[in-house]
């Protein structure tokens, strides 16, 4: 009889299969709840470790969650920031009740080659590799289209209800730079017409893209900026992450439990 699979063993196999040494300095990629001794019945990857995703993971028979983002509403998952809030304890109680274990994979997912967040998003958007300027450049030269058509196409493909676009819908675009999550590329690169990404601070950053695109439009410099939302943009690659983990944990079921888009938008 084989020993039951533990969370510690799953993490050891992740580290072994990454293709590069584990960075012990990562504060993100650690256990956020439970620990290495928990016996794993099933593994769910997800984007945000929301209560809703946890509940659906349990329904699917998974007690080990591998999310890309935080569990407790702040990037370092600093419990002292949130523990006094009425929503904190019920979430912890649910985790405990279902003998769950959470191990985040963020920094190492982005350092891995390929970075599955880009692979997944390009797949979901229909950005075929034949359009990519160079492998893993995330820069695509597409048949010329308009910003309006491109954005409408992406919204349909992702069913992205709260997508936001800045720029002239009639602006002709072809050269696309893909970003994910908060790693939104700079819109002022000369070889980029349109940036597609997840989230970016609206102003007071290092390059305030909405203001830049407004003025570029006024000056006749064709630029477009498409924000898919943080969750929608990185959610896609958690499917590739699930498939990869499945390849070295044959003992248990592994699946994607999607984090749904958190927003709705008024008509």
């Amino acid at each position, binding site marked *: 009889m084989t020993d039951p699979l533990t969370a510690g063993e799953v993490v050891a196999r992740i580290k072994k299969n990454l293709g590069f040494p584990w960075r012990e300095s990562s504060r993100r990629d650690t256990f956020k709840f439970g620990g290495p001794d928990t016996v794993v019945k099933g593994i769910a990857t997800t984007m945000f470790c929301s209560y*809703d995703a946890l509940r659906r993971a349990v329904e699917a028979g998974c007690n080990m969650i591998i999310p890309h983002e935080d569990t407790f509403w702040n990037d370092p998952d600093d419990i002292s920031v949130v523990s006094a809030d009425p929503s904190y304890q019920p979430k912890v109680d649910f985790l405990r009740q279902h003998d769950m274990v959470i191990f985040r994979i963020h920094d190492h997912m982005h350092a891995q080659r390929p970075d599955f967040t880009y692979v997944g998003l390009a797949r979901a958007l229909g950005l075929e590799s034949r359009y990519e300027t160079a492998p893993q450049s995330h820069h695509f030269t597409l048949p010329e289209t308009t910003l309006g058509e491109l954005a409408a196409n992406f*919204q349909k493909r992702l069913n992205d209800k709260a997508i*936001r676009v800045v720029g002239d819908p009639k602006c002709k675009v072809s050269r696309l730079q893909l970003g994910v999550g908060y790693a939104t590329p700079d819109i002022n690169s000369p070889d980029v017409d349109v940036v597609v990404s997840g989230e970016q601070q609206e102003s007071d*950053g290092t390059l*305030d893209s909405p203001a830049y695109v*407004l003025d570029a439009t006024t000056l006749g410099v064709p630029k477009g900026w498409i924000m898919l939302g943080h969750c929608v943009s990185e959610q896609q690659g958690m499917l590739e992450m699930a498939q990869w983990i499945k390849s070295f944990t044959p003992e248990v079921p592994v699946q994607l439990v999607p984090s749904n888009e958190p927003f*709705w938008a008024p008509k």
Partner: protein
Amino acid sequence: MHSISRRRFVSLAAAGVVTAPTALKALPAGSLTAQDVVDRIKKNLGVEWKADSVDTFKAGDPSAAVTGIVTTALASLDVLAQAVKVGANMIVTSEPTFFARADTPTPAPRRFPRTAGAAPDAAPPTARSPDPVFSGKDEFIRKHNLIVWRFSDHWRQRTPDPFAQGLANVLGWSKSAGGDPRQLTIPQTSLEALVSHVKQSLKSRGGIRVVGDPKLRVGKVAILPGSTPIQASLKALPGVDTILAGEVREWESVEYVRDTVDLGGKKSLVLVGRIVSEEPGMQLCATWLKTIVPEVKTTWVAVPDPYWRPTL
């Protein structure tokens, strides 16, 4: 202060018109300089001035005479052109002019200096490369001798918070404010109806995003314009039905409200965008400036919601 002011000063000094300490005296009698306007703001605001602040001149000559003032949430090229049209040469903006907190007329080195085909690490630094949008804006400002001054850190320190007060006014909720416009009690309505009212009142195009049940009954509202960190959301949400905010970090407040809703909390979050959330506060700024700078005309210029959205 940028080179334009130095250049003007040098030319004036060379002509024997001014020396540094008496520069103001060279102006026509009775004229008001941009620096005078800022000094009056500092004197009348009722907020202690901080040395480390973004509230500084971003372009133009502070010692130039002011022909008129425009306040705005964002000194976009469109807004600058409207200022020129109404004969105003001083622009007071709450957001940066040159597309970054650093607010300099040349771009900062790019964070993602990816040249197509090159490995990300192989690309040389692209520091201060010419950028047609930065330089186009800078040229427009120079050509029209505009003066841009940012007013953000200190304006929001005023009590009551003018950005929240401005939103409350525009949304027709100012009578409900029992002193602090950041915490309002409004007539009960559904979240859906509230969002529709907010969208119409703020002339929002595609910038609104909502977390929560559209049928939720809403009566208590926290108004948090600008950028809201998780700590502020955690503080506000337990006491209200909805937070109306400019922008948040999605991995913080959006997920916090999502979890709270899914755990049974009758709560919600309405994001309108940072620039849109600061518009009414800069409208109030124009009203206030008129009272302390009566010599020149002050006009508020609106910025349309930068965002739009295709429909599914």
